[in-house]
Structure formats: structure tokens, C-alpha cells
């Protein structure tokens, strides 16, 4: 009991030191639920090689990661979207200098129940579905049932990416929004769970969540173009239309163990782990173009 108490208090004091910016042996990583499993895998392997380092990895969404980075409560923010210009302004105000590292790629899979007869959808179809312009599966060759739209909460990078690339088509000024009728689920796992037990639901999750009990829809850019299924090859060659880069953000040029960790993530064995967790590795290891200063 006593040793436990000692362990807890010492853990706290180390955490506090770290919060004040001194590079310690305790790394706090926060952000995107999409890559939380990948970063957790990196962290486990990293602490095996460097047993003096403690790494805490928590999800919550890309927005949560940026908020934590800007409020100085984490060392590395993980994100499945680019940092927002507004967030850069706030970072400046808080004296934070975000540095961006592209660490992998992810295909966003649109998933339905395996019993759903709909296999193929175009980007326009997806926009109609998620904005509830068309509300019935029979419009897309399915049963005569209402479509249940599943989305993530607005703090999710996946939510923002899907909105910007499928609903707004890259034009951030255009007014498209998810339908208010969309169910906002607290995590990607919650979407996967609901789709598995509800044959009329449709949702979007990172490629890592695809499993036997979920069917990923093949997507075409426009009618007449081929329908492409999400997998490592189609994301890597860019033919799958809904894919996105994954990022780590640090405050300023990383130093000490934070730098070693980022270098590890970008190394060959780190990138192999990207592939093992069903994401797509970046090309060009050690390439400076995967790094960007955002201040």
C-alpha cells in the first residue's frame, strides 16, 4: 500500500515537471482516436527499447489533441487532420510552436452491415446520404428502410475530414453540413458496434476498424468511374478517393526523448508497425517533406 502511494506521488511530480515544459522521461500523447492504437503500439515498443521513458497515450479526437497541445497539457498531439489556421493563431497567443510530422496514411472506410445489399456508392451518393437528402436505402438499390446515419462527434478529425472531403469536396467555404439527424457517436468503435448490429446503419471509420462483421463499401469518384475498395494498395496508389494523412504535432523542435520517439515513428521499424495496424506507411523515410513548421 505504502509503495503504491509512493509510486503514485512520484508519478504525479514527474508529470507536473513535464507539464512545465522541461523535457523529462514522461511523454504525454493525446488526440485522434483513429491512430490511438498505432501510437500505443509505437509507445509499447519504444518503452521496451528505452525502459526509463514513460509514455501516456490517450484518445478523445484530433481536436482534443490540439486543445491539449495548445493548453500545454501534452507533449505530442496526434491528429488525423491538418492543424486549423485558427488553431495556429491560438497557438501563437499561447506561445506554442506546432511542428507537424506526417507519419502515415489512412483510408476512410464507409461501412454498412454485411447483410446490406448495397455494395457500391459514388461520392455524390455519400453526400446525399450523410446530408439526409436521400433518406431511404431503396434509392441506392437496398431495402425500403430508412437510412440511419452514424457520424462522429465534432471533436473528431475523422468527422472534420469526412465533412470537408465528402460533403464540401475540399471547398471549406461551401455550406454543406452533416444532417442534424445524424447520430453523433462518441468513438469509432461505437460506430463499428452499431453498424454490426443494425442492418440499416451507415457510418465511416478508419480502415483499421474493418473486420468480418463490417462491410466496407466500394467508392467511385463519380458515376462511370470504377468503384474502388479501401485497402493498403488502393490508398497507397491514391486510387481510393477518401484517404488522408496522419500526423504527430510537437511544441517546437522536439528535444530529448520526444525527438527520439518521433524519429522512431518515422523509422523503418516504426513504419512497419503502421502497416501492421492496417494503416498505410508514408513513402520516403527520413525525407524532410514529411515535416512542416506551423508557426
Amino acid at each position, binding site marked *: 500500500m505504502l509503495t503504491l502511494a509512493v509510486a503514485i506521488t512520484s508519478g504525479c511530480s514527474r508529470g507536473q515537471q513535464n507539464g512545465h515544459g522541461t523535457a523529462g522521461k514522461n511523454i504525454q500523447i493525446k488526440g485522434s482516436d483513429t491512430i490511438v492504437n498505432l501510437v500505443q503500439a509505437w509507445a509499447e515498443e519504444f518503452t521496451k527499447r528505452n525502459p526509463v521513458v514513460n509514455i501516456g497515450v490517450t484518445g*478523445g*479526437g484530433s*481536436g*482534443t489533441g*490540439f*486543445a491539449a497541445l*495548445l*493548453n500545454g497539457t501534452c507533449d505530442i498531439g496526434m491528429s488525423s487532420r491538418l492543424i486549423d489556421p485558427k*488553431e495556429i493563431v*491560438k497557438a501563437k497567443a499561447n506561445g506554442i510552436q506546432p511542428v507537424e510530422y506526417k507519419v502515415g496514411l489512412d483510408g476512410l472506410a464507409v461501412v454498412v452491415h454485411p447483410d446490406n445489399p448495397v455494395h457500391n456508392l459514388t461520392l455524390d451518393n455519400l453526400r446525399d446520404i450523410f446530408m439526409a437528402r436521400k433518406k431511404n436505402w431503396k434509392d441506392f438499390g437496398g431495402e425500403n*428502410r*430508412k*437510412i*440511419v446515419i452514424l457520424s462522429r*462527434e*465534432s*471533436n473528431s478529425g475523422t468527422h*472534420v475530414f469526412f465533412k470537408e472531403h465528402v460533403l464540401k469536396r475540399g471547398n*471549406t467555404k461551401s455550406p454543406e*453540413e452533416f*444532417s*442534424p*439527424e*445524424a*447520430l*453523433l*457517436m*462518441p468513438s469509432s468503435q*461505437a460506430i463499428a*458496434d*452499431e453498424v454490426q*448490429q*443494425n442492418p*440499416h*446503419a451507415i457510418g465511416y471509420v478508419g480502415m483499421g476498424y474493418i473486420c468480418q462483421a463490417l462491410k466496407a463499401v466500394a467508392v467511385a469518384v463519380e458515376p462511370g468511374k470504377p468503384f474502388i475498395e479501401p485497402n493498403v494498395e488502393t490508398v497507397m496508389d491514391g486510387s481510393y478517393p477518401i484517404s488522408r494523412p496522419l500526423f504527430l504535432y510537437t511544441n517546437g523542435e522536439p528535444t530529448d526523448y520526444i525527438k527520439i520517439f518521433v524519429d522512431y515513428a518515422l523509422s523503418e521499424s516504426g513504419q512497419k508497425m503502421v502497416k501492421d495496424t492496417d494503416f498505410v506507411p508514408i513513402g520516403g523515410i527520413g525525407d524532410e517533406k514529411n515535416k512542416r513548421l506551423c508557426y
Partner: protein
Amino acid sequence: MRKIKDFVIEKLIFLSGITTIVFVVLIFAFLLKEGGTFFYEHNPLSFLGGKLWYPASDPAHFGILSLLVGSFLITLGAAAIAVPLGIMCALYIAEVAPASVKDILKSCVELLAAIPSVVIGFIGMVTLVPFVRTLFDLPTGLTAFSGSLMLAFMAMPTIVSISEDAIRAVPWQYKEGALALGATKWQTMFRIVLPAAMPGIVAAVMLGIGRVIGETMAVMMITGNAAYIPSSLFEPVRTMTATIAAEMGETVKGSMHYSALFAIGLVLFIITFIINFIADSFMRRAKR
């Protein structure tokens, strides 16, 4: 010496008493400070009456009408289930049950209060939600109805234990008088005991409702969180509490979204304050 001791203890007790008040006032002041900045730039009427909640969009929409409707719908549904059930249960425990059953039942009800809300939410998500979907042939089981049903379980313990106290506080002369005049046990219970205990029961109901309206975790997991105004209990809803819980993590301190969430907190605080005030005034009447 004795006087000093008296003085110290008296002041200590005074201090413990006053801290609660200080905490409440501080919480309210903090909510007012953080949420108040929202109303510098936004009209309270368009906040309360706006139908669109798109806090992270550009331009952002901060309308909480659908969230208010969601919270009230779930509370109303939970009350409709928990109130009759809870009062009957209290009557049974206080008036009908034999001593052995009474003890078991009472501890079971108290145990129900001890289940954490996340566990209730989880159980609801894996058992109730698919069941509701197939039973009523709905598009999805993540509905206000599922939320109400689960929350009714959470309000029950409060309603049962406080109602039971109120029923037992009814003077025995009332009952003996009724029975002596030839009323049956059933008539005594419904026409004498229940009306006499009514102020206490109303207080119990209000406190139970207060618990439901502030509940967060369970509703976030089983109500679907769709921010639109539902047309029935069998559609998804989003509550105020779930909105705060789901979105607080992403907001940067001082942003408009941040103060909008605090403004929701302020609205919730005022609602629960009113409910507690009503409960309190009935409680006082019950004592008289």
C-alpha cells in the same frame, strides 16, 4: 478553558456549514463568468430558441432548442416510468411487505443507487438498444425511449427511499382512525396515507427528476446524440449534458465554443436549481 473549547468547536461547525454555501456560490460565479462572455456576442433568445447546433462549423450555429427538447423528453419519459413504479414500490415497502421482505427490498433498492451510470449505459447499449430496435421495428435502437428506460432505473432509488420515509412519517392515528371507521386496508392506503404523505412524495419525485436531468454518461451512450427536434420518444435525441461532456475536450479555453458550453452549463444549473427549490418547498410543507 472550556469556553475556548466551546468557541473553537462552534466556529469549526460554522465553517463546515458555510463551506457548502461558498462552494455553490463559487461554482455559480464561475459558470456566470465563463458562460456570460457568450452572451456578449449572442442573443440569449437565439441561443435558447435556435434549432441548429453546429458549434465547430464556419459560421458556427449555437442553438440549443433541440438539446433542451432532448433533455426534457428524456426526463419526462423517465419520470413517467419511474414515478408510478417508485411510489408503488415505496407503498409496498412501507405498508404491505412483511418485515423480512422489507429488509431485502430496501437493500436492493439502495444497491441500485450504487451502480455507476457508465455501467448502466453500457448494459443499456449492449442489451436494451438492439432489443428496442427489433421490438418496435425502428431504424435504430439509440432512442430517447431507451435513454428514459435506463434513467428510470437511476431515479428509482431516490424516489423510493424518500417516498418511503414520507409514507412512514404519516401519524399512526390517521390510519387507526380510518380503519376504526371501517375503511379497508386498501382504502386507508390510497385515501388516507397517500394524500397525507403527498408533499414528501412530490419532493422525492422532484429530487429523482433532478438526478435524471443531470445524468450524462448513460444518456451519451444510448440516446444517439442527434441534435434535431424529435417527433416522438422513439427517435434519437441529444441532451445538454451529453453535449457538454462530448465537446468539452476539444474546445480551446476562451473560444466561443468553450463559453457556449459553459452557457449550457448555466442553463442546466438554473433548471436544477428551480427543481430543487420546488422539491425543498414541498419538503418544508411535508414537515409542517
